């Protein structure tokens, strides 16, 4: 267990190194001169040369990477060309709404997926299963932004229950915060619900046929307790493995949802920075998001080994 934990922790290093190279290369893929692109067509050659020096673009590629990487290691992601603010502080300022969105949508996701999966397994051989399969298939086939648009039409315009845009920080009142963020979080969650619920259902159906379920029934344990204590708990373990993919989906989705609902999170900052050609910010955010993803997957893997005693005590 300890061995595995250490190995798993160390495995983050090569991955983050590759991630850094990719992020670095993204900007250097830019056709033409980045300084020229940033400053625009009618800038003077002197200004371009100045910016090139400032960004270190006049040096060899590997030197540039080394300089950039040694800064990144210390938490310095560079400076925004647009606002002259440090990228790290920009991300910190904008992370609150994104975190709120992800946290609440995870709660909604589990609050829907778990009961749905349990219900499906408990009421096997009913019409519920094909309906569920169709709905979850529909869920992964629907563009998030389109679904969001329809929901805005429904609950923001036709029945004006929720605001269609904007964000209120949690500190300024939980009510207002929830009111603004509920609809966006719901959209973000609903697309991923099918994946989790399906995985949970499949694992539960696998578990239902195991011998230990027969043992529990033969003991005279109540059917409801068999389902919850044995079938459900055992199915949770394999289900954690798809959580990583879900987090990726949520992170990608925040970019769209934040843009659509004008929520000032890092997703919207990313899109805005792309339009402003503010490459240091783009680079910083993409690296940050990949970092979160790697970190969450690390947690999920460690959680998995913790949940499964067969691995924990090896």
């Amino acid at each position: 267990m300890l061995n595995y934990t250490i190995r798993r922790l160390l495995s983050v290093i090569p991955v983050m190194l590759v991630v850094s190279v990719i992020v670095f290369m993204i900007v250097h893929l830019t056709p033409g001169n980045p300084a020229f692109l940033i400053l625009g067509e009618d800038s003077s050659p002197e200004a371009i040369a100045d910016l090139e020096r400032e960004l270190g673009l006049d040096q060899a590629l590997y030197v540039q990477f080394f300089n950039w990487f040694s800064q990144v290691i210390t938490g310095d992601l560079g400076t925004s060309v647009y606002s002259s603010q440090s990228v790290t502080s920009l991300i910190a300022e904008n992370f609150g709404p994104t975190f709120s969105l992800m946290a609440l949508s995870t709660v909604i996701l589990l609050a829907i997926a778990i009961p749905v999966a349990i219900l499906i397994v408990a009421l096997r051989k009913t019409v519920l299963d094909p309906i569920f399969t169709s709905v979850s298939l529909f869920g992964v086939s629907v563009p998030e932004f389109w679904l969001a648009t329809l929901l805005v039409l429904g609950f923001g315009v036709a029945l004006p229950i929720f605001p269609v845009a904007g964000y209120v920080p949690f500190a300024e009142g939980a009510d207002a915060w929830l009111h603004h963020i509920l609809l966006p979080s719901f959209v973000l969650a609903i697309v991923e619900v099918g994946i989790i619920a399906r995985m949970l259902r499949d694992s539960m159906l696998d578990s239902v046929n195991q011998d230990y379920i027969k043992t529990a029934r033969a003991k005279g344990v109540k059917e409801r307790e068999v389902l919850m204590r044995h079938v459900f708990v055992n199915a949770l373990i394999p289900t954690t493995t798809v959580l990583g993919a879900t987090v990726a989906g949520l992170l990608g989705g925040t970019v769209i949802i934040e843009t659509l609902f004008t929520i000032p999170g890092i997703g919207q900052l990313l899109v805005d920075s792309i339009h402003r050609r503010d490459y240091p910010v783009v680079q910083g955010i993409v690296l940050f998001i990949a970092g979160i993803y790697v970190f969450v997957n690390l947690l999920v893997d460690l959680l998995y080994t913790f949940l499964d005693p067969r691995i924990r005590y090896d």
Partner: protein
Amino acid sequence: MFTKKTNLLALAMLLIVALAAITASSWLPFSPAAISPEQRLTGPSGAHWFGTDDFGRDIFSRTIVAARVSLSVGVIVAVLSTVIGTVIGLISGYFRKVDFVLMRIIDGFLAFPALILALALVAALGGSITNIIIALTLAFFPVMARVVRSATLQVKNQSYIEAAQTTGSSHAVIIAKYVLPNILSPVIVQSTFIFAKAILAEAALSFLGVGVNPSTPTWGNMLQEAQIYVTIAPWYSIFPGLAIVITVLALNLLGDGLRDSFNPHQAKRKRKTKLA
């Protein structure tokens, strides 16, 4: 039986969309580019089935024509990701020496949510169709590489591969003759899913304003333009969106169906309870 029926249904849906897009110019009621300012944002009617947009253009015609770009991008991305992913996956699964390095690189790519990676790449490369295809391919090939690698590892341990190795066949021959044919089913299933995801991702990029040139009708571009008018002309958003849903749904249905057909044992096990 059920899966076969759904496979056919999904295939039929896809063919209808593709055929409609290819033959569009010969039967469309309106030119997708024909502007008529007096007909701005009119709702669905006998003449304009899906209504008109902010330039008075026929949304039905534009939705059909947009399928060309969206489907082409999807197909090309699916094919390229499959080819690149399969080559890398085969090498990685077959030659253990390069496996570690290749897989760390793939892990690095997989650390980015596909949409974020594509978004950053398009931002850097610029929003032409070619660049979008490159960006989406880079976003989706790592998944294929992983799938192919694990399939190759399974096949590699089979005795017929060992037998072929002892008779002195070259690695290239073994891979082409014995490994590749045995990993085709997961590859086909996965490429169907990539096709579906690429269509969704292309639409999302266009919607975020970094996609295909806004003057080209694509489903994503249409939805992006429709966004401003969503309260006064909801049909403008609804129909192109439905086109995406139908196409992607058909692809996902096909992928699921193919997976069940290739894996009848597993599919059955999931549906039937074990006999005592």
